[in-house]
């Protein structure tokens, strides 16, 4: 030791002075484009070392004025807007919107459509949860699980492609049902998926859910208790991880969810690990629902019969029948009058209660349409959840909340 001092060799590993290291609280501008945030989020944090003392978010970087756009579009042209909310599970948004309009216009939806929708929506939920949970794995340093389940997610997207021709921004279904019945390709792919997915999924599960490193990283990371979560307006898996069993599918069943037997998994601590585990179990329950819906898929029409002024007639009829030609023209030009009324309809989206508050004054477009975007509402709770945690835990908390920029900023 004394030799070192005599030769003026530095004993500390860094040339920074002790005051610089211990002294100040630093301000860290985390985002808006940072590889660890998985989206456009800005957090300005006060940090002491790597401990977060406080943080404030700015949002709105990809705001696209959807609510204003919707006031100028006929109802069927609003469905593509909803794609771009939570783009990890577009079909749920699409069908939520379609069901809102159907409620307003009083469409009688055949049971077959309900079941078809349930299959598509649960596939979308699986895709959404797979992204979220595998990304939690990535943020803890486990990349292989992510690669592994993205293959399964691709199979889900191929099924969407069979139904509607698109993969990510699906614009799936129509007001009144579907534009066509499930194709043979869809049936084949769904059967293969139901046979192979559970095994692949359990393999992914075994990589993480009992992994010591993963548990150490995620337990007590970004916790929130049930009361606080309710005050913040949390819904979906993030609320259920705190122990509240609120699920729109059960509380206000839509699209015949009351026909299916499934459980709502809940957590205890409301931390990242619980959010992960709730989503894992929801994927298993979704598979259960899809199996029930597919095995009992009722015979019948794939679109509502009582709303010809909203559902495009078959093209053959347009050329040969006067009424069909008129309806076709009115729908394409967006000239169909809509009843006056005010509707609130909500569905269980990938992240929670996705609501549509629609005010119609009888015009061709909504007078006012507001989306209840679960991300926007629960992201407010984020600073409280990460205060006192480290930066790496803040990253994990953000990905476990599954904040989707498109839904956040609308």
């Amino acid at each position, binding site marked *: 030791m004394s030799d070192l001092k005599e030769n003026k060799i530095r004993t500390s590993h860094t040339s920074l002075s002790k005051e610089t290291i211990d002294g100040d609280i630093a301000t860290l501008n985390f985002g808006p484009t940072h590889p660890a945030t998985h989206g456009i989020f800005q957090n300005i944090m006060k940090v002491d070392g790597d401990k977060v003392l406080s943080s404030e978010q700015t949002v709105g970087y990809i705001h696209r004025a959807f609510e204003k*756009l919707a*006031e100028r579009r006929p109802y069927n042209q609003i469905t593509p807007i909803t794609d771009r909310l939570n783009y990890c599970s577009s079909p749920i948004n699409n069908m939520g919107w379609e069901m809102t309009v159907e409620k307003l216009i009083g469409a009688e939806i055949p049971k077959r459509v309900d079941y078809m929708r349930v299959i598509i929506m649960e596939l979308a939920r699986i895709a959404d949860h797979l992204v979220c949970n595998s990304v939690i794995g990535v943020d803890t340093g486990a990349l292989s699980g992510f690669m592994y389940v993205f293959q399964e997610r691709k199979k889900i997207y191929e099924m969407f492609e069979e139904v509607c021709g698109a993969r990510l921004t699906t614009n799936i279904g129509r007001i009144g049902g579907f534009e066509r019945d499930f194709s043979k390709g869809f049936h084949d792919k769904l059967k293969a998926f139901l046979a192979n997915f559970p095994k692949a999924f359990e393999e992914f599960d075994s990589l993480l859910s009992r992994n010591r490193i993963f548990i150490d990283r995620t337990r007590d990371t970004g916790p929130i208790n049930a009361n606080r979560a309710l005050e*913040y*307006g949390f819904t979906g898996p993030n609320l259920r991880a705190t122990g509240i069993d609120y699920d729109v599918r059960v509380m206000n*069943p839509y699209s015949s969810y009351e026909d299916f037997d499934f459980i709502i998994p809940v957590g205890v601590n409301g931390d990242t690990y619980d959010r992960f585990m709730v989503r894992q179990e929801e994927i298993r329950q979704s598979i259960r629902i899809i199996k029930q819906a597919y095995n009992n898929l009722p015979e019948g029409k794939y679109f509502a019969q009582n709303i010809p002024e909203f559902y495009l007639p078959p093209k053959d009829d347009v050329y040969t029948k006067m009424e069909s030609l008129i309806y076709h023209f009115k729908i394409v030009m967006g000239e169909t009058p809509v009843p006056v009324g005010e*509707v609130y309809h909500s569905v269980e989206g990938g992240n929670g209660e996705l609501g549509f*508050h629609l005010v119609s004054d009888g015009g061709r477009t909504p007078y006012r349409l507001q989306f209840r975007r679960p991300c926007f509402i*629960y992201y407010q709770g984020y600073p409280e959840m990460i205060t006192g945690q480290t930066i790496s835990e803040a990253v994990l908390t953000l990905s476990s909340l599954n904040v989707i920029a498109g839904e956040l900023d609308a």
Partner: protein
Amino acid sequence: MSDFTFSHETVLERISKKFEGLIIKSDVSYNILTIEVESSITHQLIKWLKDDSILNLSFLTLIGGIHYPENKGKELGVVYHLHGLESNYRLRIKTFVSIENPNVDSIVDIYVGANWMERETFDFFGILFVGHPNLCRILNEENMDYFPMRKEYHLEDDTREDKDDRYFGR
């Protein structure tokens, strides 16, 4: 879907009893009861609904704005959606204020989650929430000097003559 533990009549009766003469209008639209109240009592009403042992509407689903330019003196509205998670009962509360003096009491002290929803409503409609801890723009840019969701701002250029509102919407 309709197995509510309350009927709309009992809820309306209970609220009317507590706030006698302050309910301006009420109707049931698509199975949700809507009540319109004076802006002076929204805070009191929402707090009471949260604390009331019977109704217990303690989950704030949504706050939104709405603009009716032709309703003189009551142009701007705030719409609250409340939800009782135990009773599974949803209630819609509306209040209207004039565009010159758009003040509504903030409910951030009742629901901390109302913070961003009120900021969003301010951002797009210019409704001023009295008592809000941080009332500033949230989704639009900071130096914007108008409230874009008001009806006087059209999506497309007003000077175009080839696009008639009758054919191309509002």
